[in-house]
């Protein structure tokens, strides 16, 4: 299952990047990136997974004493949490940019925004 998640994650990253590289529409690029970052999250979580163990929450089933034998690695999860939030921030920013760009030239085609070059 770990491998399934990993491979899916990598595939999502590649698909997302492919979309970002080939779609000229700014919003579609943003969508593609959000898919790629979902893929990244999947990879991160999958790496921290240990087959057969449970979530790193102590309750009746998992006590503090045997936690280190029962739970999976909490660190990747913490990282992913941060990454998700940051990803949202960047996506929101890209969207705002898209809107603002559209306002200046009335197009979402990224190849039209080449006033700066060389």
């Amino acid at each position, binding site marked *: 299952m770990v491998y399934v998640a990993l491979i899916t994650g990598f595939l999502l990253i590649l698909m997302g990047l492919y979309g970002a590289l080939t779609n000229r529409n700014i919003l579609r690029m943003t969508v593609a990136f959000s898919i790629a970052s979902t893929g990244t999250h999947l990879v991160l979580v999958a790496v*921290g997974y240990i*087959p057969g163990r449970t979530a790193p929450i102590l309750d009746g089933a998992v006590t503090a004493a045997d936690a280190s034998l029962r*739970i999976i690695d*909490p660190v990747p999860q913490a990282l992913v949490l*941060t990454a998700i939030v940051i990803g949202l921030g960047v996506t929101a920013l890209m969207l705002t940019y898209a809107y603002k760009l559209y306002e200046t*030239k009335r197009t979402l085609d990224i190849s039209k925004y080449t006033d700066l070059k060389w």
Partner: protein
Amino acid sequence: MIKKFVALLLLAGLGLMFVGLLLGFTPDQVLNTTASYYADHSVEDTGAANIVTAVIVTYRGLDTLGEVTVLFLTATIVSLILTQPRPSGTPIIGVAEKKALSSGELLQTGTRLLVPLVLLFGVYVFVNGHLTPGGGFQGGAILASALLLLLLSDPTKRFNHRLISRVESISGILYVVIGVLGLVLAGGFLDNRILPLGAFGTLFSAGAIPVIYTLIGLKVGAEFSSMMVTLSESRDR
């Protein structure tokens, strides 16, 4: 066509690296040092049942502070961009915008009913962050979705920006202050042991974690709301 081909070629290269990563990867069978330390010590260190929360709020508190800052920054920039006057000389978007859809009666009534519940649920999620899955971010997102509901039901509704930004700022400042208190009163910046750890597994336990998560929840909620509100109002300006 060439572009797609080149893209595929490059991604094949990247894929090669990923394959390399996969081939070199063997899932852990036991926790590594860091993780097992957390598993073994987080209860006595922090008193939080949810180890992920302990990691996020305490051990890697600085990350979380940064994360909150990211949202703060994004919200600020979004409103900075959208409230900025248009650069001179750029065409103004035409009047052809669609009229705001008026939502149905059902939705409006439903919203009125639902919003307090959603808000309450959000608060529940972040105050219990140290016990159960969820926490400030999830709770904050839920708070924001309450606002979203309001927005959907009445797109022309005006929100009190001052209130949102006050909530955001005050919780942000308090978060920093708590961090500094940790530095002064306890073992370091963002140390949660400025408050007693309390009885393990209860609401008022785990030191400052619930407080911090509450602040995060409020702040994140405010930031999400601010982002959405600015975006939704932008066209009217």
